[in-house]
């Protein structure tokens, strides 16, 4: 996926001279994940460059640039290192259009490598999407495949809204063969990655691949799981998911972030409300534990894998048994 993102940045910069790319180490080094590799050489240090090491300043200057017609694409080196910029993101980036009755648009893309699975030490593996998706005015998107990575980043850069572009860092090295450039569905639309009838897995970003593996295993066991990849998390158009769940009657939401107050809560709440009479079982959530992100040697305990997903699917009351909720399945398994 890293290569697709790199190509998207290059193509966008080549097409539009207003695109500038900056952040920490995005210049000569090409970013710590090499997503900006070669760009400063190709487009020059005025357009692709290293900034001082200050995330709030990075977002703040990007806001100013966008006010004067540039389309900055900035990188936060890791999820947790975007927190210093939280005020700029929440109080300015998200609100500027609204504050000015539409007079000032901020076409800024904030690229954030997020999530775990790469053995990173503390502060390098946060799934911070819920902080952004609860903030009106931001578009929050996350690709699950290399093709989407390319297409959605192009769209994000072309978009007149500020976009928090969450890159599932553990998938940077995923090598699905795609011919680039490629255009996929518009990013605001969720897509069915695999059709199925028995239950719906709702996923995004790093969990798309995991859910597809789970669905493959389930298929062997005779259970047909539909996998919906959300893509744009906010603002969210729930129609694809609700249509799917109305058909299957069962749903499991999966993400890496801690379950409590995570994005999955919104999905579960909304599906619970909109598909109430179609549900054969409660909407279950599978996600990270409600603890600080664990150290590298324990992250596998935190991250949802095929097993935990299938275990949740198994708990979807297939026998129509009456589950005594008091001792019933917990949340966050």
């Amino acid at each position, binding site marked *: 996926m890293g290569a697709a993102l790199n190509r998207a940045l290059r193509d966008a910069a080549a097409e539009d001279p207003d695109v500038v790319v900056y952040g920490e180490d995005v210049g000569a080094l090409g970013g710590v994940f090499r997503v900006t590799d070669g760009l400063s050489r190709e487009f020059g240090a*005025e357009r692709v460059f290293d900034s*001082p090491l200050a995330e709030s*300043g990075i*977002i703040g*200057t990007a806001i*100013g*640039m966008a006010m004067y017609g*540039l389309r900055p694409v900035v990188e936060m080196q890791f999820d947790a290192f975007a927190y210093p910029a939280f005020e700029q993101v929440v109080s300015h980036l998200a609100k500027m259009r609204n504050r*000015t009755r539409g007079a000032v648009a901020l076409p800024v893309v904030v690229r954030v490598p997020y999530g775990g699975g790469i053995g990173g030490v503390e502060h390098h593996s946060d799934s911070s999407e819920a902080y952004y998706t609860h903030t009106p005015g931001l578009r929050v998107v996350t690709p699950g495949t290399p093709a989407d990575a390319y297409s959605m980043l192009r769209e994000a850069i072309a978009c007149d*809204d500020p976009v928090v572009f969450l890159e599932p860092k553990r998938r940077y090295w995923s090598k699905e063969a795609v011919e680039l450039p490629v255009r996929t569905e518009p990013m605001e639309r969720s897509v069915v990655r695999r059709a199925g009838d028995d239950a719906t897995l709702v996923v995004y970003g790093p969990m798309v691949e995991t859910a597809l593996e789970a669905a493959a295993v389930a298929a062997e066991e005779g259970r047909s799981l539909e996998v919906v990849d959300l893509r744009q998390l906010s603002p969210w158009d729930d129609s694809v998911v609700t249509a799917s769940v109305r058909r299957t009657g069962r749903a499991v939401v999966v993400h890496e972030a801690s379950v409590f107050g995570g994005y999955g809560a919104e999905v579960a709440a909304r599906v619970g409300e909109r598909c109430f009479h179609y549900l054969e079982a409660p909407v279950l959530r599978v996600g990270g534990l409600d603890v600080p992100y664990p150290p590298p040697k324990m992250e596998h305990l935190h991250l949802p894998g095929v097993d935990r997903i299938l275990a949740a699917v198994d708990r979807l009351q297939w026998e129509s048994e009456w589950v005594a909720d008091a001792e019933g399945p917990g949340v966050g398994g």
Partner: protein
Amino acid sequence: MDRHGHRVSHSSFTAPDHTRLADLHRAMVIGRRFNQQASTLARQGRLAVYPSSTGQEAAQVGGVLALGDQDWLFPTYRDSVALVTHGVDPVETLTLFRGDWHSGYDPHRYRCAPQCTPLATNASHAVGLTYAARRKGRDVAALAIMGDGATSEGDAHEAYNFAAVWNTPVVFLVQNNHWAISVPLHAQTAAPTLAHKAVGYGMRGYHVDGNDAAAVYAVVSHALAEARAGGGPAIVEALTYRVDPHTNSDAPQRYRDEAEVAYWTARDPLTRMAALIRREGVLGDEEETERALAAFDAEAEKVAAAVRDRLAGEDELDPASLFGDVYAEVPPLLREERQELVDGLRET
């Protein structure tokens, strides 16, 4: 200028000519009246809140009039006088405080960012904007205003640093009015002056009498010219005083002495400038001077009256407008919510 409005001997900065001095005074007179009018409206409950800058007119007017035609202003909530001087419609300046909307004006139209409340956060916007303008081949500088308290925020530091490293033409005008609400300067910094902060960024720092509009104008003009010429950004600290409460809901008697206010009132920027104008015949002979000064007052009254009139009516607020500019297009989620809101209002 000394505190009685005598021109002091020498300065390395170019003093403004007579026309400029007149402009400065005129803008201060209008600004002062505007502050009073807005404060009155706040007391009457016609504004939700108003942060008056009475006493600080010289700093704001001196800074803003130094700007060129392409230049941008990045103001705070305190800087209504700067906005009005910069040409923003006075009523649009008050929209934020009236509570009709957030920014009442189109920033592009006036080359003026929205009034900024989260302290020090728009300073980096100024840096980015001037960077972008340079890339686009335009000669645009910016004046970013902040208070003494705001200099303590990390965002001030980051903005200074980005500006210095990128060598963008931004002048950071620090209005040191000695208080951040109730917090005095000595609880804010141990630096000799706030202008000294410039040293740590490799930029120039200027310390100026912020109640001397001519001095502020001269120094900011100089700093802007240098910045434009590639000499880098600068911090201009304008030493001044907030004579009124922080906002109309503040209780300054809890934290400061009347004597301090009196000290500063005796150094009022308008009184000083008027004295200089009279002494130096800036507006002509005595009769011409008094006529011109009276005309400034009359103009200020007119501005105030227009504000009063235009704010007298009731606001037309459209609930559906809440949803319009959250995103470039209204997404399905918000379309639903808008519908529900409108339906709900119709029912009641």
